[in-house]
């Protein structure tokens, strides 16, 4: 149960995630970020993300790795619950969070 909403504006791709990103839904996002041709800025909007498990974190890491080669990645609108996971897991230092 996760909605993935993509908005493309030239080189900027915004992906808004809604719902739960866990072992069952994270593969959906993984598919979406397979092809990032021409994307120089990737933005994850996590405002409506209610849950993130390690499977979700893994996909974010993968996206970060890809974008390191071709541009930048940032995560926006991180709610308190997801933020705590980022902090606990040391992701707050790896990701650019706005």
């Amino acid at each position, binding site marked *: 149960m996760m909605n993935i909403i993509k908005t493309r504006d030239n080189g900027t791709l915004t992906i808004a995630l809604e719902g739960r990103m*866990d*072992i069952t839904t994270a593969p959906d996002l993984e598919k979406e970020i397979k092809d990032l041709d021409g994307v120089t800025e990737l933005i994850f909007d996590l405002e409506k993300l209610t849950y993130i*498990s*390690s499977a979700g974190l893994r996909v974010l*890491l993968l996206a970060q790795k890809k974008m390191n080669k071709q541009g930048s990645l940032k995560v926006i609108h991180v709610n308190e619950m997801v933020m*705590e996971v980022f902090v606990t897991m*040391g992701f707050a230092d790896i990701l650019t969070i706005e």
Partner: protein
Amino acid sequence: MYAAGMALLQMVGLSEKAMNYPDELSDGQKQRIAIARTLAMDPEIILFDEPTSALDPTIVDEVQSVIRELTKTGKTMMIVTHEMKFARAICNRVFYMDGGGIYEDGTPEQVFDNPKRENTRRFVRRLKVLELNIESRGYDFLGMAAEIRQYCDKNQISPKLFNRIRFVFEELVQQMLLPKLESPHIQAVIEYSEADGQAMMTVRYNGEPYDVLEHGDDLSRAMLKGNTKDITYDAAAFDDFTNCLTLVFTEKQ
């Protein structure tokens, strides 16, 4: 003889069934008749071996109240039971059995309120705990998450601690154990101690010995470690479980 028999039926509340055949009685009524039959022998001591264990929960009360009534006659009775409330209410001496023998004994107050030994303490505390059982991959995942939330709300566990418990439970079950176990059987027991604000989760699972702390993937292990104060793994067998993880949570780690 007839009068004595009728008096006993009266005592178990079944005098109007005197002329009925056994198959016309409910399970609870049959159990009460069995008690009357025992009393007819006028024994010095009555032994009850789990008198309510095979009964439908709705009729446990009727059998228990007959036994409760019997205590008033002053007859010595020894009851083997898992119904702790019942044991506490009617006994004047409690023997807690564990490891093939008497583990601790005393008055109900001693055993239930001030247990001296570890297993008794855990058992008694476990009365307030939440137990979750997963017996298939298709278990009601959302229902279980709701149960954890309810348990935390009821015990006034802080949202922070609740989040940690939920993350670890999900990570462990969904991410680490279910993909690994061939025919999963997982039991999670959550205990919360108000006194020190600490929660403990004991997770038992079947299959080959599998220490998730050793073999789980990096992120999952970090998720577990980051959200707990302490984790220990033990390959000890217990019922049909072969693995046991004990996780301790505090608000500040």
